[in-house]
């Protein structure tokens, strides 16, 4: 299986962290908060959809809050396949980093 893209990876990680409250808005703010980049809502939807299709996420509807104008939330949950994909990315990444000497030096060095 192909590796996850960076956006997919971030989103999956965000969802894992958020647990029961993993729907679009908090996912976005979590990623923006940690990475310091402004992610738009639209840029979350597409990977979410894709991940559901790939079977790495499940979604279900949950209750609404007044802030949402009375509309349901679509809550996402990591599947087993999703977790496995994350681990695989991490492994590959560490392996790639492992081949680089003087890891502790800053890049300007």
């Amino acid at each position: 299986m192909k590796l996850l893209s960076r956006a997919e990876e971030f989103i999956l990680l965000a969802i894992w962290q958020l647990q029961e409250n993993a729907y679009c808005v908090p996912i976005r703010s979590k990623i923006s908060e940690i990475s310091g980049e402004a992610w738009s809502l639209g840029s979350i939807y597409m990977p979410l959809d894709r991940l559901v299709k790939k079977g790495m996420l499940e979604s279900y509807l949950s209750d609404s809050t007044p802030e949402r104008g009375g509309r349901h939330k679509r809550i996402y949950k990591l599947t087993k396949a999703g977790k496995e994909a994350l681990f695989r990315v991490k492994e590959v990444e560490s392996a790639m980093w492992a081949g680089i000497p003087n890891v502790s030096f800053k890049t300007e060095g």
Partner: protein
Amino acid sequence: MEKYRHKKPPIFAQWILSSLLPDEQWKTPLGDFEEFYQSLVKERGVFKAKSWYWGQILHLVPRKIIHSVYWWFMMFRNTIKIALRNIRKHKGYSFINIFGLAVGMACCLLILIWVKYEFSYDRFHENRNEIYRTWTRTVYSDGREEVSTGSFYPLAKVLRDECPDVVNAIRWNVQTNALITYQEKRFTNNIVGFADPGFFKMFSFPFIQGAPETALYDKLSIVISEEMSQKYFGAENPIGKILNFNNQVELQVTGVIQDVPKNSTAQFDCVIPFVLSFGQNGAEPDHWGGNPLTTFVLLHENADAEDVSEKITETVLKHVPLPTNMKASMYLQPFARMHLYDVNGGGLIHSITIFSIIAVFVLIIACMNFMNLTTARAANRAGEVGLRKVVGAKKGDLIKQFLGESILISLITLVFAVLLVCLFLPSFNELLSKQLPLSLLLHPIIIAGFLAIAIITGILSGSYPSLFLSSFQPVKVLRSTLGSGAKSALLRKILVVSQFTLSIFLIIGTTFIYRQLHFIKNKDLGFAKENIVNFYMGGEISKQYETFRSELLRNPNILNVTRSLQHPAYIGSSVRALDWEGKSSEENISMNFEYVDYDYIETFGMEMVAGRSFSREFATDLTEGYIVNEEAVKLMGVESPIGKRLSVFRKEGRIIGVVKNFHFQPFNFSIQPFVIGADPSWGKNRMFIKIRPEFTSETLNYIENLSKRFSPDFPVLLRFFADDVMDWNYSTEQLISKIAGYFTFLAILISCLGLFGLASFMAEQRTKEIGIRKVLGASESTVVFMLSKDFTKWVLVSNLIAWPAAYFSVQRLLEKYVYRIHIGIDIFILSGLAALVIALLTVSFQAIRAAQADPVESLRYE
């Protein structure tokens, strides 16, 4: 709650977003957006939040559009592919569908082109909405009405001088076959218009040389068409040249106009001042007798024609006092309506309506074929429908698909229909004796009309099939083969019955039109119309009538010669200035009149009931003799009319004979009282020659040569009297009967095609049943009977519906003829039988084939 109210995202933007999302399950982004919006409001204010929301929408909409267009196109490509595959797979049915539809459409297109052409008449005049033609309605005390479009010589001047709403009024008249000479060039085939000077300011005939403001104002001027200029002057400049008119006056060319368009009511080669119709120095008549001229009136833009009509009537009545027991009023007919509408109802619009209805009938019949065959063969496509539904197509998608398919087929058909139109336009032109140009096909309105007809046809014929097909339930369809269900069988019955109802209706209608025409052609007019040649005597022949006549009579093949003022097939003039012995003073009646020469009664073989005809042996016959018809005697109420005093136009005389009633008007009119005089002071320019039927062409040659010798400048136009009667009085009837005949044929052809397709389909469906029946001992004839039984029933039902409808229409059609055929039941029965026989022949062809098939083959087939 109040807290959230100003924090709601813009409602319209929400609505857009919500309408872009597929269904309720997937509306969660709406909530996400709203939540994000709330946080934006808190962090950066309402304005920022709003502009963010709108920005998202603006971002989304174009993508959505591109996306849906893309998929629409993909699906459409699929529709086309499937449709074309279906056409190819079932060539026979497709041929029936497309051919039938193409013929139906071609009929409609031809009629559309024709209607467009007729409606384009006189549209090129800038003042077309302000120009009117005057006409008169006279009501007599006995309730009789007379409508005349002829006008009066002084009318135009009176209107100009005395009616403030009238901008201009001009007189107009046309002379055909006028002789015009320029040096050596002499042509007699000129159509000359006589018009008052303002003519070219009122009507917009574009000038090439000269100007409408000045061209006709000189008394001795002439304005010629480009074609005529070419004919007489070639490349020379025509302005200022002198043309001689009728060997009478010399006229100077003051203007050249573009050739008069074909779709102009006024047709002419040149126009000369109206005063010239009275000779060069002729005095203008100031009497108010009806005359063969037209008065056109140009009104102020905001004048109301009805008001002005009343004012005109008042003004005219000041000049012409009427007897108390007679009422006359003048009316204005819009010039733009002149071509299509007669002043007393009817006119060309009548034929246009009839043809349009018939053409639409033909198209509807073709559409029904389409619906019929598509629904009948629905079973073949049930599998496709089922599969599409299983894969996720909704009912709406399928309706779209099948409608798209039928619209596609009708657009393909349109191509064939246009080809058919191109092919048959020349014949159609001949039928109508018109020159509809093929270029009309490219007119935007026509193209739009064509497309509209094609799309409407597609929607009409695809409507039921698409609803029907799309409602299949996939489980049922895919589990077992679907029979051609009872629901569609009922519809099929209804469609076949309506097709045949329309066809039978058309057969009956057309047969009656033919019958009436036949009746008109063959009914005894009360005089012999065969073997009589007639022509209009110009100039010399008229002056030397006696010599010409005796020369003619030398030829043993010429039996009799006479002349008269009018044409005995249509006598329109009537006289009120009548007096006779014993006439009570209150009676104000009118009679039709005619002035003739010796031998009139004999040439036409009219029968005298009493007395004698005009005779050379009685010197006073010419000046004092009157012959009346039986109807006149009845009206006058005298016991023994012979020898009684009678004065016509205040000219005293005696009745010398009574002629048996004869038809001097079309059969729309009953025979009216009629008086014939012989007064030589009336110009009798119409010559009638009775010839022997044996050597017609030699005799015609003789007459022609003789007339050339007498009058080289005015070649005569010989016409057979019998043709004149038909052409003048019944041209519309002839046209309608011809076109209705063709269209009816097409309607029957298309119905039969459909029936043929249906029959073959049904035979196909019952192949196994027929096989089993035959194995069990059924004979071929039983099978044929079984297959044809249903169709017979349907055609019989159609008859029951078509008869009353046809009866009422035919009754209305024949209403206008005083002399008409009896609406007998025989034609109804015969038409019904004819339809039945045609239907059975069509069906039995298939039925016999199915019945003859080897049962072994048909049973092995599964």
